[in-house]
């Protein structure tokens, strides 16, 4: 059984039917990417998984347990971490305090210290800015902080929402290298991206979402080579 299974998921925002029967699964150890245009429902899917939205129908199973409808703060304890879209760092808190909040649910001080060290090795820029309010960081640094903070929960599944959004190409490459590194170290990742090109390069599996429905699902390399995907998302002809 896969680490995360989503079956026939429906989400409504008031009268808007945002997700229509989404089914996908994420195998432990993989990077799975969910690509699609603006408003396709990518962020909605992540928000439903992490408990920020309550689905109107369908099921979400994480590590064999039903998690749909459960509040986000409980899911963190099960091993689910979500680095939200727009990064969502606590601008009024220092980088240091943001990282501490990432480990909010953990009691193993020694383990947290070790993970913190790992995160700061992964993102040396953050070490230089530990005492700065997070709101003063650049966009790329805030993204690094959001990812680093999520890692401090020591998640089994990391949900990343548009980590490349608004970043310079060089920074995007760095972030994707790090995503691959995090995965190589054993963390399963569900990656939502508009930058389909980069996402399909790092992912094992890919799903294409269009107006609330999964329209394609395959190995990432197959999707990257598919004409439909190239035309719609990769700017190919």
């Amino acid at each position: 059984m896969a680490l995360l299974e989503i079956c026939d998921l429906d989400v409504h925002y008031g009268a808007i039917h945002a997700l229509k029967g989404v089914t996908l699964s994420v195998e432990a150890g993989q990077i799975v990417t969910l690509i699609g245009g603006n408003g396709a429902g990518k962020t909605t899917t992540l928000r439903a998984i992490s408990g920020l939205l309550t689905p109107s129908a369908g099921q979400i199973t994480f590590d064999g347990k039903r998690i749909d409808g459960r509040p986000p703060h409980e899911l963190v304890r099960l091993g689910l971490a979500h680095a939200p879209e727009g990064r969502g760092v606590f601008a009024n808190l220092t980088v240091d305090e943001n990282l501490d909040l990432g480990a909010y649910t953990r009691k193993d001080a020694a383990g947290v210290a070790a993970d913190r060290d790992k995160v700061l090795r992964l993102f040396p820029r953050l070490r230089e800015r530990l005492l700065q309010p997070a709101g003063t960081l650049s966009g790329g640094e805030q993204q690094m902080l959001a990812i680093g903070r999520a890692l401090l929960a020591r998640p089994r599944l990391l949900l990343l929402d548009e980590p490349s959004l608004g970043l310079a190409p060089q920074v995007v490459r760095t972030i994707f290298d790090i995503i691959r590194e995090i995965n190589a170290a054993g963390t399963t990742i569900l990656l939502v991206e508009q930058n389909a090109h980069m996402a399909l390069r790092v992912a094992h599996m890919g799903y294409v979402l269009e107006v609330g429905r999964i329209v394609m699902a395959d190995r990432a390399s197959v999707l990257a080579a598919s004409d439909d995907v190239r035309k719609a998302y990769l700017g190919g002809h």
Partner: protein
Amino acid sequence: MTKLLQTLFDGLAVGSLYALIALGYTMVYGILQFINFAHSDVFMTGAWVAYVVAATAGWAALGGDAPPLYAGLFTLFASMLFCAILGFGIERLAYRPLRKAPRLNVLITAIGISLFLENIGQRPELFGTQPQKMPQLLPDTTLFTIADVNFRVVDLTVIAVALVLMAVLQWLVFHTRLGRAMRAVSHNFSVASLMGINVDAVISFTFVVGSAMAAAAGFLYVMKYPGALKQPADSTWILLGLKCFVAAVIGGIGNVRGAMLGGVLIGLMEMFGAAYLSPHMRDIYVFSLLIIVLLVRPAGLLGRATVEKV
């Protein structure tokens, strides 16, 4: 010189009282972005519970003899505990169901709770419709005199209790895990919940702390002005609450240190105005200060205009 120092001391005593109440307004605003109009009624309830406890215990009857020291401490804690539970209940029953409702609905509900507390408080089984005189729990004496300035026991107590409570709050908010969670929640509910923070629990806790502080202020208020225990629906309470809200705005609403600063500033302003200009216009000084601060620094003295990076 004596007058200056005496006014300064009096201003600090009143100001620290205001600061305690202002903290409750600012903490709730910081997290839920609405003005808890019922806060002044929690303060009122704190003052009245202190009276009921002291009167029931019979400490009133002692007359000339000062009741033992524990009488004051017991009354303070009883009042804080009662209001902590009251604050928890208000949030749980009135505000939480409206968590996703427009802010205006919550604001109107707060006014409703305020009216409810004032009027239920006037029931004969509760506090009644008559003003009362608070029993003297502290010796009404001057502890010491420096340069002709009288340091009354009660004023020193007010300042000491307020300082201790504010130091505890400062430590709580800025140096504990829970405080970090509170600041995270005040920045963004949903991201805070993604950190594993139980947002509802943090909000409950904020109401408990703010209400306990208001109760302490209520206790100190009737200690300082034993004759000023007006009936629950009297406008005194609203005016006092309003002044403390002004203190929170002057300091920068949502900012804990700002509320402390604003409270003390307002206390000083009021006392200096009363001593040097006219004692009949105390409220005018306070609200003039508000107007000036809003003109010069709309976000308050310690508030930061919110700049968002995209």
